[in-house]
């Protein structure tokens, strides 16, 4: 019975990519190399996701390490706060980013504004991912290192980080996949529909796969535009799936 329920629940997760690729295979990779090309969108999505994770990663790692060190004393309240932050709809972060970064700081719709908002969106999940990776380090390793006279910083640098690197990379890739899938926060802060190539600076706008699909599906007036939206969706699914699969593979290896 349980297996049946799991299969039913897993069906959408399997069918969605299959349907997306099926549509593209039947209709052809419309306009991928022509007027409706997607290279700028792929570049924009990867730049935004990469920059967001680069901004979020050191803070998340620091918080995860801090929670590991002070876990018993202060950990539970911090974990609760992280889970609360994780539950806030990303659109709310997007609105805050628009008011603070785009309008108040006059950055305009830009790569940097979008990356900062995405970094905040992904911060709780990334911290929880890193925390899970660090908590898998055997307690005996920490005790053995401390009994050899290693200080806290040394234990973190020489035992925790090398011991948990696979789990940390897994957490990073899962977070990267999450940022690639986010649309709402960058609608108002980073993305424009077209006319943008490689951003000239951090304060230039970008065009992304997510928003591209949104605009094409909403405003497409011919079949070609809808086909391109499906092609873009396939590429996006491919990127997210690729990141998730690598993450799962690394996770399985780190658990061995």
């Amino acid at each position, binding site marked *: 019975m349980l297996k049946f329920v799991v299969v039913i629940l897993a069906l959408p997760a399997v069918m969605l990519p299959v349907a997306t690729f099926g549509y593209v295979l039947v209709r052809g990779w419309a306009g991928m190399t022509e007027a409706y090309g997607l290279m700028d969108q792929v570049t924009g999505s990867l730049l935004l996701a990469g920059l967001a994770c680069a901004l979020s990663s050191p803070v998340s790692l620091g918080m995860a390490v801090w929670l590991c060190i002070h876990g018993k004393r202060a950990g539970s309240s911090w974990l609760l706060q992280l889970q609360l932050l994780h539950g806030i709809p990303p659109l709310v972060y997007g609105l805050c980013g628009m008011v603070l970064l785009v309008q108040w700081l006059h950055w305009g719709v830009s790569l940097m504004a979008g990356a900062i908002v995405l970094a905040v969106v992904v911060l709780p999940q990334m911290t929880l991912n890193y925390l899970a990776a660090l908590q898998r380090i055997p307690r005996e390793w920490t005790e053995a290192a401390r009994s050899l*006279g290693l200080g806290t910083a040394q234990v973190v640098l020489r035992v925790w980080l090398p011991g948990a690197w696979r789990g940390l990379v897994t957490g990073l890739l899962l977070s990267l996949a999450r940022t690639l899938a986010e649309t709402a926060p960058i609608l108002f802060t980073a993305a424009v529909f077209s006319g943008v190539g490689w951003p000239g600076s951090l304060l230039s706008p970008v065009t992304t796969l997510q928003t591209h699909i949104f605009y094409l599906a909403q405003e497409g007036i011919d079949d070609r535009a809808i086909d391109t939206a499906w092609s873009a969706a396939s590429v996006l699914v491919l990127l997210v799936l690729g990141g998730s699969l690598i993450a799962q593979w690394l996770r399985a290896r780190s658990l061995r």
Partner: protein
Amino acid sequence: MKVSPQESRQPVSSPAPLLKVRNLCLELEGRSILDQVRLDLPCRGVTALIGPSGAGKSSLLRCLNLLCDHWQGEIVIGERSVRKWPGGADALRRHLGLIGQKPVVFPGSIRRNLLFGLGRRERKVVPLSRIEKGLSSAGLWEEVRDRLDSSAGGLSLGQQQRLCIARALMLQPGLLLVDEPTSSLDPQGCHIIEETLLALARHLPVLWVTHDLAQAQRVADQVIFICQGSLVEQAPAMEFFTRPKRLETREFLRWNVCECDG
């Protein structure tokens, strides 16, 4: 390397104890783990710390090297309180080598594990002679001399435990705290570890936690018996096993002998 227990059992030469514990109390989650423990550790030889499971033996070791630091009372090594140890808790832990129940080797080579406790600069300039000396002290040099850069995970459990001993010795400790080091080993591995530690005990005081009375009889010069967090009796090994003073000790010995017999 072969050393008989009797050979290592030399009379305690210095009347001044190396380590003094006074009124040590430890509570964990509202439960008393150690209660007013008072003991003296001589400057040389093996002192066995025995007691039933849950008596607080391992907790006492963790208090000594400040891995557990929320105790009350006083612990003095030489003339210095461990709370005011020069260089802090990390320096204290380098002075008190701790060997745990299960061997803990870090991912990486035998060499990396051996040098794990040393500083970054020191690790880079350690001569082979020092590595040889460290591994030889733990009776491991001959077995690993040709594969220092092989994974430490490939060693047997007994070899890993001796690697842990060598790793602690590389820091030139003034006292060795040993927490049931043979509990995860087969009889042969157990025998080798006992011999290794007895050889070390000729130059280095060893506080050896065990719940194995036969092992305590084989290795100890002095025995400390704790039960339910309190020190019951401390006496030279011969006297402890033949003429125990306290009723609790006699019952513990009788019960354990009965258990061994049958």
